[in-house]
């Protein structure tokens, strides 16, 4: 069904919640294709359904209706354990609030996904250090999150998202908690990663941030429109 270069395919995705007597439809039949190596922004105001969109792409939530293929795998067929594996190996999450564990050092935070992927201690450390080097934090590896600036924390989070070499880097408002300058630096990093061939899906409400992507889709009231 999915073409070789197409690593993410959505067909008629519907997500609805029963709120009391009322059936609330958040996503109203979304069709989306993402090619390998694309940097795509999903732009939408709050309440447009973009968070639900992010949850479904990240396999954190399942759609009420429609088909979703990721790397040629049909997500609807999977159980909790398999979904956990998909999240660990296919998707690298970057959150607005960084979501670093405060009691772990930068390098330990980056190692986390590798623990769940069953990578050995020595290999974990090596890969984590490489990734921290890639995001330019070689001299901060032993620091705890509260000893890092917002921009540095987000770069640790990006290193963590990339350490398992995922198919998609999935970012939810990655600059939302940063000042404009730092946000710009993080966007610079995203553009570099894109240039290296990474596939990036970024969800944002900010048009200026969305412009960094090679392609923008807009979500409004549960409907997706190109451009």
């Amino acid at each position: 069904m999915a073409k070789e270069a197409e690593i993410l395919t959505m067909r008629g995705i519907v997500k609805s919640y029963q709120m009391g007597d009322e059936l609330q439809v958040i996503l109203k039949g979304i069709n989306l294709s993402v090619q390998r190596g694309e940097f795509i922004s999903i732009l939408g105001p709050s309440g447009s359904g973009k968070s639900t969109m992010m949850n479904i792409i990240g396999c954190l939530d399942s759609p009420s209706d429609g088909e979703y293929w990721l790397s040629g795998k049909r997500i609807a067929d999977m159980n909790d354990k398999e979904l956990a594996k998909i999240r660990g190996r296919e998707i690298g999450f970057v959150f607005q609030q960084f979501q670093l564990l405060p009691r772990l050092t930068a390098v330990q935070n980056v190692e986390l996904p590798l623990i769940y992927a069953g990578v050995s201690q020595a290999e974990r450390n090596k890969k984590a250090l490489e990734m921290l080097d890639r995001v330019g934090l070689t001299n901060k590896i032993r620091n705890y999150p509260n000893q890092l600036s917002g921009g540095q924390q987000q770069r640790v989070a990006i290193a963590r998202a990339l350490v398992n070499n995922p198919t998609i880097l999935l970012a939810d408002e990655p600059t939302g908690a940063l000042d404009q300058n730092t946000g710009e630096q993080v966007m610079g990093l995203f553009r570099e990663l894109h240039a290296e061939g990474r596939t990036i899906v970024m969800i944002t409400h900010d048009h200026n941030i969305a412009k960094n992507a090679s392609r923008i889709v807009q979500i409004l009231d549960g409907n997706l429109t190109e451009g």
Partner: protein
Amino acid sequence: MIKESIKMSWQNIIHNRMRSFLTALGIVIGVMAIISLITIVQAATSSVTSQFSELGAGKLVVSALGTPLKKGLTDNDVKGLLEIDGIRGVSPTLNFSTDVVRNLMVEENVTVEGRNEMYFTENPKLIGRGRPLSLIDMESKNRVCVINPDLQEIIFPGEDPLGKTLKLKGITFTVVGVIDDEVTTDIVSAIQKSQGRDVSEGKAIIPYQTAMSMTGANSITSLEIFVVDTTRNAEVKADTERVLNQAFNYKEDSFSILDMDSLLDSMNTMLGMMTAMLVGIASIALLVGGIGIMNMMLVSVTERTTEIGLRKALGAEPKQIQMQFLAESIFLSVLGGLIGMLLGLLLSAVVINALDVDFAISMTAIGLGFGFSAAVGIIFGWAPARKASLLNPIDALRSV
């Protein structure tokens, strides 16, 4: 992954040091109570039973209540008993109390026991110094006596009593032997001694015929029967009953036989039941401790909802999350169990030392303490860990 779970749970326990300590405290107290109770009761039991069996093994104690026509047993009846197969000997006993006089010293209400030579043969360790009463003393009704160390201290302070005389009921007796300090001759003082209580009571033993003529008694009302083979106790007891029934003309309630071995058995059963009951009570503390752990784990799951959500987003399977939280509760309770075990052993060592009983580390106690605490960790950690593993990652991440 198990290694990682242990590492993660250890980090969390260390981070919440105070809370972890207070949570584990319930387990510490529970395990400490169980360990010390078992160790103390076992030590006391073994010391009491060993003294008890030293006194009572292979022995039947007959009390003749007599009938209106016949107050007690005659020498002939005793001879009849001696003919029973499996009886090694019979020792009649006659107790009375009187004042002991020496020069101007008087000790009031000293227990005087009339015994025969068999009693000394059966209790070879009884005499510390001097000699026991012999068959010749019995037959020629010699006025000799054996005294216990307490009476020696009172009547012969700082002196060697051997060969010296004292007066019982105005009759002069020569002291020929002194009872060994370490030996206890009756159950009551054995128990008192095992409890560390010092009983200072004078006692003298004289030939029983002499005692009979002194008290004017013409029959024996109490005697001990020594059995050759303790496995044949019941048989010998039945034969004894037969002989005694004949002696008292089959009158009901004219005598009673106390079988020391079966008494020891029932005492052991009773102590075992008491131990079980005490452990049961101490287990309540452990149960409360377990609920404490469960409570803290539930709080911890709620507090760390975001962390759980994040770990799930990073690829943690439900089972792995469950393992992490389960490891934490097992860790906490086993840690508490180990501390409780150490404190319990320490406490029982102190108590046992004060009781002057041999201290032995009970493997049962250690096994129970460790097993209980691990079980508490698994049982009470299960529900919170399961709750954590079932958290929906979206809800978990949204709660930021």
